[in-house]
């Protein structure tokens, strides 16, 4: 055993009296067939209008009808192209480089298209900045085929043509412009050079135009601080691969902090590298209140309330720079942690980096000052990121102007302020009164309902565009499909309204050729999707720039105080008094982000990496606070999680009936609530889940003083938390510390389990321990998937990529609650009890008997005392493709069998649905189709409409009711790679073999390849000391490797 830590997956598991835990261990598929419900009730049976005779008649008739219908094959028609496009070959996928820039997610990606349909998002490995897609970006391809999209322009809710629309709007534009009132462009962050230029031209054409950029979840404080310090509006960039010590104060940089995209750099530094015995990895200390992905991955996590975080940051500043600042004392633990963190930062010097997510200009300035003082190598201020541009002051001014009737018209694009503004309702009322209110939107959302003019906007996969994500790093957005509907993008409309005859494509091309490319090829840039330049680019000429200046001058008056020195700011932060009551920390969930894609069933069903709950948002609360308030979470007989409700009140605004989840690691005195849920407009009924947290986002501050009040009622969560217990067999996640890893032999920290043979203990992998004969797999390919637990951040991109690649169905909230989720790949999240590792072992060894002082019954409970602040481990689990698979031997119809390439095959057409295989699988990775999930009105998700079905991968069959399915190790992809090589008559290079998950994994946690290719990376990883197999002692010989998690616990 690498560690004797006892892992637990739910608070419920800590409850010794919980019968549910035991029940679930014994019984995986808990749902009984409700025979009694029906047959037991005599009255209902008798009152039923269908008699036994009728029933038999129906059965007879339908059997006969089905038999007759089956005899004649249907006539299938095929319609080829009249003129086939040169590049499209039916059956062969094409890849196009493009860019997503929806105002929240920015990434350079590749789009896989089949017969002209985009079906999958892949990472663009050539992109230097944000070339990897997160879970939401992977899911965005399904949003293209959203049935709820606005299909054509509308005026007052009725469909019109673009000609009528243009006519009315341009006339109104004139009137507003002439009236002397403001004409406002309220847009998302485009970070687009061409759009900026275009808006400048628009300003030149019409009088009194204001351009306000609005981010639903604002990073304005960081932008303000950066602007004040460096005179340029942007966000400092960080390269965590260069950092040896990472200290984060409330910054979830593995999540969506400042636009996210830091996980690949971070993961690089987390894999122990270097000479044997002296391997190094980064040390990550996280101070935070909500349990975030970053906190879960940290070596040391300190729960701290937001007000305390400010003080902590001031103290770290003082410690690092040597200034003395008087501040109130925090708890002993926190003080100790801060002291040690300062020590380590100082020790690492320029190899350290400090980041913060505190929504405060002072705090953000201080972070810049600290990194500057450290001259941190990971800190990049010269080429700032531009993926957030929103300006709180400008938005506030706009709202005030609108209230004061100084605004005549507004054109909105990519924003939904009625939903996302704290006072959205009021905003909506003003919108209705305006002379001109145009909104460019893909959905008939809250804002569209209040606007007279609804301009149908295309999805990003149907649009042209350009993005400068980081200074000097450009990306191109190109359409990958013809517009599905009668839509027009915002920029094309602006061109039209400024009297420009060009299309936006021509406009971008011209902009690039004159300003950006500097002689380089435009076609090459479109082909690559990215373009890097070191030449300074200025596209907006000076006259228009002057106008821009006017617009922003308003804000600068408010930022005078920014000029104060860092030490003053630190003192100001240090003087933050402790919060009197509870503090609410608003955050964005990995799956939902700011809520733009709320109508995307993949994202709704995506289990949150931390809570493992899907289809919901909820108030996270610490165990201590929950007990004090009498709030509870409990599991019911079908494995579902139930929870209490509370009313959440901020500044007199109350959100009623918010469900509560008890979150280990949540800082005491704080609660968390996610944005992006509770949408009601332009969204299917099934997807109208959760509560809207935006009304509490007062002053664009994610931290609010809150009052919570328990109310009656029970909430039913769809949580995959207690699902698929590994039958109490421990030793699942092996982990060790860097010190032991470096100093001890791998038998100590990664021991091979032993089994007894002839009363002698032998290795579980010893051939003598095997009752099966071994096949020779040394010729041809033998696939292995390696998963490095050190690099896995739990981001979940692989889960959605797998969903998209393999046509995995969406089953809906009630089915997920019944443990019937269909994800082929799940990311198990385990909490552990932290700190006293040795103490735990000692205590466990000293246990004797069941009861008493040292009894195991009380002892385990004590030892596993609901961790105030647990350590967390993520472990992606999919079919392990065992060479000696337990599922194969129990299938009565041989529907599942083994291939010589190491893959465990599943022949769906052969499966009769006995589910023996799922029962016999020690990893619980098999998924059963309880219902027909496609073309079934009961499951009204994307597979139930023609548009949504366009996302299906034609190389993978859509499974029917009553069959088992599971991870195939993307056999369709490996087979394609082999076929390509055969056709081209060449050998296969390492890295060519990919699965959907390994291709999606940007952190390098998943490596796929052929272990018979001795040069391959995965073959090398197989021999690594850290390598182990899941449940090795069962003797299944899996083809999925795991690599022991190493934590850097070294303190200063």
């Amino acid at each position, binding site marked *: 055993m690498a560690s004797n830590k006892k892992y637990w997956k739910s608070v419920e598991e800590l409850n010794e009296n919980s019968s549910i835990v035991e029940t679930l261990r014994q019984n995986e598929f808990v749902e009984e067939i409700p025979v009694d419900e029906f047959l037991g009730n005599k009255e209902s049976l008798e009152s039923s209008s269908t008699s036994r005779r009728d029933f038999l008649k129906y059965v007879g008739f339908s059997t006969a009808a089905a038999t007759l219908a089956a005899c004649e*094959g249907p006539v299938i028609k095929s319609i080829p192209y*009249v003129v*086939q496009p040169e590049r499209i070959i039916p059956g062969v996928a094409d890849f196009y480089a493009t860019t997503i820039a929806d105002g929240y997610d920015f990434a350079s990606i590749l789009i896989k298209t089949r017969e002209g349909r985009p079906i999958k998002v892949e990472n663009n490995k050539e992109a230097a900045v944000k070339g990897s897609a997160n879970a939401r970006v992977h899911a965005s391809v399904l949003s293209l085929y959203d049935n709820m999209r606005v299909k054509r322009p509308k005026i007052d809710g009725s469909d019109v043509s673009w000609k009528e629309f243009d006519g009315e709007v341009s006339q109104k534009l004139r009137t507003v412009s002439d009236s002397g009132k403001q004409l406002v462009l309220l847009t998302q962050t485009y970070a687009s050079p061409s759009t900026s230029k275009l808006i400048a031209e628009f300003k030149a054409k019409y009088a009194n135009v204001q351009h306000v950029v609005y981010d639903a979840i604002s990073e304005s404080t960081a932008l303000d601080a950066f602007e004040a310090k460096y005179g340029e509006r942007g966000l400092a960039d960080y390269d965590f691969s260069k950092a040896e010590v990472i200290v984060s104060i409330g910054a979830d940089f593995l999540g969506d902090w400042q636009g996210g995209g830091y996980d690949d750099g971070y993961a690089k530094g987390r894999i122990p590298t270097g000479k044997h015995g002296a391997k190094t990895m980064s040390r990550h200390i996280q101070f935070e209140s909500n349990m975030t992905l970053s906190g879960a991955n940290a070596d040391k996590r300190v729960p701290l309330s937001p007000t305390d975080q400010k003080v902590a940051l001031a103290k770290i500043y003082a410690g690092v720079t040597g200034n003395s600042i008087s501040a109130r004392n925090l708890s002993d633990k926190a003080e100790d942690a801060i002291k040690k963190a300062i020590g380590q930062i100082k020790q690492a010097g320029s190899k350290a980096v400090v980041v913060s997510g505190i929504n405060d200009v002072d705090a953000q300035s201080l972070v810049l000052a600290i990194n500057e003082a450290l001259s941190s190598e990971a800190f990049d201020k010269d080429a700032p990121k531009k993926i957030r541009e929103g300006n709180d002051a400008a938005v506030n001014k706009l709202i005030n102007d609108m209230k004061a009737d100084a605004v005549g018209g507004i054109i909105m694009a990519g924003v939904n302020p009625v939903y996302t503004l704290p006072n959205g309702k009021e905003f909506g009322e003003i919108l209705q009164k305006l002379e001109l209110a145009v909104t460019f939107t893909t959905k008939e959302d809250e804002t569209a309902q209040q606007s007279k003019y609804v301009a149908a906007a295309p999805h990003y996969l149907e649009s042209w565009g350009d993005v400068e994500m980081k200074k000097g790093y450009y990306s191109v957005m190109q359409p990958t499909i013809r517009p599905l509907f009668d839509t027009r993008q915002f920029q094309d409309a602006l061109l039209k309204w400024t009297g420009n005859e060009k299309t936006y494509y021509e406009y971008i091309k011209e902009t690039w050729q004159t300003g950006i490319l500097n002689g380089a090829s435009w076609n090459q840039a479109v082909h690559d999707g990215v373009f890097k330049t070191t030449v300074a680019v200025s596209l907006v000429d000076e006259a228009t720039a002057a106008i821009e200046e006017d617009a922003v001058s308003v804000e600068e008056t408010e930022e005078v105080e920014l000029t104060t020195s860092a030490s003053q700011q630190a003192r100001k932060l240090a003087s933050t008094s402790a919060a009197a009551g509870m503090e609410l920390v608003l955050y964005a969930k990995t799956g939902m982000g700011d809520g733009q894609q709320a109508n995307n069933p993949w994202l709704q069903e995506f289990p949150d990496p931390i809570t493992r709950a899907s289809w919901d948002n909820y108030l996270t609360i610490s165990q201590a606070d929950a007990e004090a308030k009498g709030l509870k979470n409990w599991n019911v007989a079908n494995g579902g999680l139930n929870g209490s409700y509370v009313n959440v009140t901020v500044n007199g605004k109350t959100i009623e009936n918010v469900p509560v989840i008890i979150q280990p690691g949540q800082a005491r005195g704080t609660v968390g609530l996610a944005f992006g849920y509770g949408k009601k407009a332009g969204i299917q009924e099934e997807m109208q889940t959760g509560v809207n947290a935006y009304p509490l986002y007062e002053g664009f501050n994610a931290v609010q003083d809150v009052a919570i009040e328990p109310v009656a009622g029970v909430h039913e969560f769809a949580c995959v938390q207690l699902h698929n217990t590994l039958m109490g067999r421990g030793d699942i996640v092996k982990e060790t510390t860097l010190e032991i890893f470096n100093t001890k032999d791998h038998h100590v920290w990664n021991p091979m389990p032993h089994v007894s043979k002839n009363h002698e203990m032998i290795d579980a992998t010893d051939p003598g321990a095997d009752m099966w004969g071994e096949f020779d797999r040394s010729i041809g390919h033998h696939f292995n998937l390696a998963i490095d637990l050190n690099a896995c951040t739990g981001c979940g991109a692989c889960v959605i990529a797998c969903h998209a690649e393999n046509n995995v169905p969406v089953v809906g909230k009630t089915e997920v609650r019944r443990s019937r989720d269909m994800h082929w790949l799940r990311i198990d999240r385990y909490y552990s009890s932290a700190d006293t590792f040795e103490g735990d072992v000692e205590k466990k060894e000293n246990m004797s008997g069941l009861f008493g002082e040292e009894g195991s019954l009380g002892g385990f409970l004590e030892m596993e005392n609901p961790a105030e602040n647990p350590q967390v481990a993520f472990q992606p689990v999919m079919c392990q493709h065992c060479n000696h698979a337990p599922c194969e031997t129990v299938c009565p119809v041989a529907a599942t069998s083994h291939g010589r390439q190491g893959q465990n095959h*599943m022949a769906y057409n052969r499966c009769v649905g006995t589910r023996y295989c799922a029962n016999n699988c020690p990893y619980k990775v098999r998924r059963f189709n309880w219902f027909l999930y496609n073309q079934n009105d009961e499951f009204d998700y994307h597979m139930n409409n023609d548009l949504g079905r366009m996302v299906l991968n034609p190389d*993978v*069959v859509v499974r029917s009711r009553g069959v088992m399915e599971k991870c195939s190790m993307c056999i*369709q992809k490996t087979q394609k790679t082999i076929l390509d090589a055969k056709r081209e008559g060449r050998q296969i290079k390492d890295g060519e073999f990919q699965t959907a998950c390994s291709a999606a994994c940007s952190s390098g946690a998943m490596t796929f390849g052929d272990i018979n290719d001795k040069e391959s990376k995965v073959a090398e990883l197989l021999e690594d000391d850290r390598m182990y197999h899941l449940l090795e002692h069962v003797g299944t010989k899996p083809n999925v490797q795991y690599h022991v998690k190493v934590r850097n616990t070294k303190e200063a």
Partner: protein
Amino acid sequence: MKKVNHRSSVSRILGIALVMMLAFSTSLFAQDDAAAKAGEVLFKANCAACHKLDAMSTGPMLRNIEARLEEEQGLDREWLYKWIKNSSALIKSGDRYAVAVYEQYGKRQMTAFPQLSNEDIDNILAYTAQEKVTPPPVPKLEGEPSTAGGFSSEMVLWALIVLFGLLALGLFLVNKTLRKFAIANGTVNVEEESKKPSVWKAFVQNQFLVIVSVILLLLGSAYFAYGYFMQVGVDQGYQPIQPIHYSHRIHAGVNKIECKYCHSSARVSKHSGIPSLNVCMNCHKNIAEVAEETQQEGLTKYGVDYNKEIQKLYTAVGWDPTAQDYVNEQKPVKWIRIHNLPDFVYFNHSQHVTVAGVECQTCHGQIEEMEIVEQYSPLTMGWCINCHRETDVNFRGSAYYDKIHEQLKEKYGVESFKASEMGALECGKCHY
């Protein structure tokens, strides 16, 4: 599933007779002018790519061109020599009519033929000056029985049935009457006869025989029931009528066009691909009509007017043969798919065509002989597996197999391996 009826041999004989007749009639009309014959050869070799005698093609129609030019434009044979030998020079020289023709045909220049002598051109003109031969109207064959051959086989059959029926009835009546007579005469003892145990009764009384025959009956019916159910969903011989009568016999057989010229994606894709219509137009831009013999053969032997079928193609792609341009609306053709694999099977053409080098005919049969394509193979799993068991893997010339083949040879000491030995029987190779 519809099938095309076999034509009766009578009609086939008629068709041959017709062809013979036509052959004679042409020779009747043929002039003894050898020049025209030589001209025909030259015309077919040089001019036919762009010109037709009686229809517009890339260039104008050429029947009686010399006379028409003389009549309409007052141009003589000298002008034609110049034009044919080097039309561009003539246009450049500013010749009025040359420029007019050039403009009229979309500024497409006619290829120069300096290699043709004046005599050659004379011969060609002689050929074009021939009268058009109008074939005698083809007698309609479809449906109506021809009188010359007497009764159709069907009628004979019916007549025979009626005859036999009458005979049987007659015999029965005779027997009955005779019996009546016999009983009346007392020759036969009725009671005695009824006491005599019949074979049927004896059979029924013998339990062993009954059991054995019941078992045999059940086994037999099970055998046939199994056979019947096993062919459900197996559409071997499926031969649907397509919206355009496309003859693989003419294209792949007579004209020997390579399969993968049209089904090009079979080389690289899982689909063989139904050719898009622009592929058809590569040739059919110039082939608006089939040869006269082919047309006759189609009409008599297959009951198809090939020229009409080509017109259907033009309608579909929006091609206007007179304007020689794509001007009309496109109307995609809804072909009826013949080979239908179930969704749960993954089949890749390129794997078999390019990698394994399997001939198209192996699975699709003698396509080049099929006037109407039918499903040749059963497309059952047993059929797939059988081929995988019997076929050697083609290792040669592929760097992919080099190492694998070496290792296999070393391990098993044999040179060739069946596909099944390389994993081609694994479920997951086709079902995912």
